[in-house]
């Protein structure tokens, strides 16, 4: 017989599942399960804790933890290192929070996850007993750790976009977008591309598209977290990118660029202007293959009539509500955001500090000459949309900005669809 009865059991499993559903009780559902109960627990607890962070690129965290452990023999910190991939770090944290794992005490969260984790009730509010002093920190970085008026995560490192340019071809850096576009003729004369950022369809596109929108006075979300993309400012911002791509001022291959590809094009001397993060500075000035070592110029991102609004990168430190030793966790958190630690981060790992004072520190500036420019960038930065629906918001931006830049979709339609998609995500309650 040719009947595939062998498929029956799978169907049977389905029926079984239905009958079991009463007992299994939706295992694995998320929700405000953490709630305020857990936030009251373990506030005075002291003892060994675990610090969770993504790949420690330049070996900064280990020495710091060794130092802490030497001073706190009874409150030792164990370092749990995650992968280098942001998505996987995110998923790993979610899995552990869902399992109410008390083993993840202090966690390093990307600025864009802070609101989501806070809204899920996984992060200890940093107030009352757990309060920290943020007055010395750059304001946009503090905003990135704040959700609904409460601080949930302490800024640890920051990051802002900057404009790299060729000093040999452009005498003074453009201050505005229009000025930069007018300089594209220089690129044409030299037979190179004019401007590129990261326009591949991934998180970097959200960064670049938001920068374009924010720099021209628009915003992705308003103060209440509702989408606000149906404005002329937003339209001008995104149109600028689309127009530059259509003109060829943004080379066509930029549609495949992520950070590394765009850096490579610039280092090979194929670009006049590049929007990228501070890490490019070190590599472009030291890498053997770099053709722009001696002609590298650096400026704030161009805006309407002054510096543009960079998207904010970086990481915040948060305490898990499930931690049993929150007093120790708070001390460690303060230690990790202290001036000394921040300075170590900057010198050892080229990670941008969140403390205003360090940007004027002569020793640091000597080592990282881009700091003054970066300060301007971060001061003018807009945190990427602070919303618990960040994955949906970034998806809405990417899916619509991408065809808009490529010219496959009108900017109006793209913005209208972004608006609708974000509204829908927020309405999912």
């Amino acid at each position, binding site marked *: 017989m040719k009947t595939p009865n062998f498929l029956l*059991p799978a169907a049977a499993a389905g029926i079984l599942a239905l009958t079991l559903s009463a007992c299994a009780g939706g295992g694995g559902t998320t929700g405000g399960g953490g709630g305020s109960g857990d936030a009251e627990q373990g506030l005075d607890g002291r003892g060994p804790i675990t610090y969770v962070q993504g790949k420690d690129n330049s*070996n900064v965290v280990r020495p710091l933890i060794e130092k802490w452990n030497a001073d706190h023999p009874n409150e030792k910190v164990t370092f749990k290192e995650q*992968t280098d991939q942001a998505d996987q770090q995110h998923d790993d944290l979610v899995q552990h929070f869902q399992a109410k794992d008390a083993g993840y005490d202090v966690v390093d969260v990307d600025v864009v996850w802070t609101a989501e984790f806070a809204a899920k009730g996984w992060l200890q509010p940093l107030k009352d007993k757990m309060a920290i002093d943020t007055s010395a920190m750059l304001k946009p970085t503090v905003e990135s750790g704040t959700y609904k008026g409460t601080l949930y995560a302490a800024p640890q490192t920051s990051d802002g976009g900057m404009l790299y340019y060729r000093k040999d071809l452009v005498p003074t850096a453009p201050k505005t977008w229009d000025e930069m576009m007018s300089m594209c003729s220089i690129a044409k004369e030299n037979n190179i591309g004019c401007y590129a950022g990261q326009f591949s369809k991934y998180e970097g596109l959200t960064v670049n598209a938001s920068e374009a929108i924010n720099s021209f006075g628009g915003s992705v979300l308003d103060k209440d977290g509702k989408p606000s993309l149906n404005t002329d400012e937003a339209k001008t911002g995104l149109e600028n990118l689309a127009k530059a791509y259509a003109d060829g001022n943004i080379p066509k291959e930029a549609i495949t660029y992520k950070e*590394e590809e765009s850096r490579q094009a610039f280092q090979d001397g194929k670009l006049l202007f590049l929007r990228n993060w501070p890490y490019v500075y070190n590599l472009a000035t030291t*890498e053997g293959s770099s053709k722009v070592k001696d002609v590298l110029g650096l400026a704030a991102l161009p805006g309407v009539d002054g510096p543009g609004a960079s998207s904010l990168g970086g990481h915040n430190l948060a305490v898990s509500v499930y931690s049993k030793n929150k007093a120790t966790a708070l001390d460690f958190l303060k230690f990790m955001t202290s001036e000394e630690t921040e300075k170590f981060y900057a010198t050892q790992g*080229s990670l941008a500090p969140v403390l205003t004072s360090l940007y004027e520190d002569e020793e640091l500036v000597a080592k990282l000459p881009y700091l003054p420019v970066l300060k301007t960038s971060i001061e003018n930065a807009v945190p990427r949309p602070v919303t618990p629906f960040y994955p949906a918001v970034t998806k809405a931006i990417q899916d619509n900005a991408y065809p808009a830049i490529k010219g496959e979709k009108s900017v109006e339609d793209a913005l209208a669809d972004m608006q609708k998609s974000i509204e829908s995500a927020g309405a999912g309650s």
Partner: protein
Amino acid sequence: MSNGTATTALRAEQDRGRKTAQNREKWAQGRTYISAAVILIWCLAPAYWMVVTAFRDVGFTYDTSILPTHVTLDNFNTAFDTSFGNRFGQALLNSVFIGVVVTAVSLLIGVFAAYALARLNFRFKYLVLGFILGASMFPGVALITPLFQLFTNIGWMGTYQALIIPNISFVLPLTVYTMTSFFREMPWELEESARVDGCTQGQAFRKVIMPLAAPAIFTTAILAFISSWNEFLIASQLSSDATQPVTVAIANFAGAQPNQIPYTAIMAAGTIVTIPLVILVLVFQRKIVAGLTAGAVK
């Protein structure tokens, strides 16, 4: 036509025939070599690029010269350097250990199941087959969260068994199906005649059937081992620093700068990971050939 000319013509014909046969043989052999060369290029060209990149100085990552340039061993040092927390050496051992256990266990219980399915008559056979196949139909990405919770509840997080058992389940359906399909092609009459000669059924199975099935068993073993060797998704969420396999260790490779993708180090790691596997297969291949000779009995 006269007799003589006929003979000559025939002889000429035969000669020509022989020559054509020889030519055809040569041509066939030649085609085999051409095909083999095409296969080699297709399979090895991208791998070649991996190796070339692995030996390239990180500062020249995007160099596109076909031949190696800026050759350095730095990337291999980076891969094995433990000071940055790369546990690549340990991870390599973990992967081998997990792979061997997964292969051995899944083959053993897979052969049981396949024997039952191919040789025994019982009710619900179709149900069982469907159940086993059904296990290969659920998106793997959706298995992680429930497994995470299950293993957290029973305190298995980060243990070897938390990595081994899922891997066994992933390779079992394929193992059972291939073994079943091969088992039913077996000349089981041989088993019967062996039993007539005084073997027990167990002996008959071991001494007659197993050697015949050797190519199939080793193929299945290779499939199982590589599948476990390649597994990443589950391991990335369920392993700990001490138990992580190479796939996870490679994903942990980071550049010296944030945002920098250390292609050269990743390719070095890929090279290191591939070599033992190829050696392993080459060693096993002798076994397969041995199995083949045994199969000539048939």
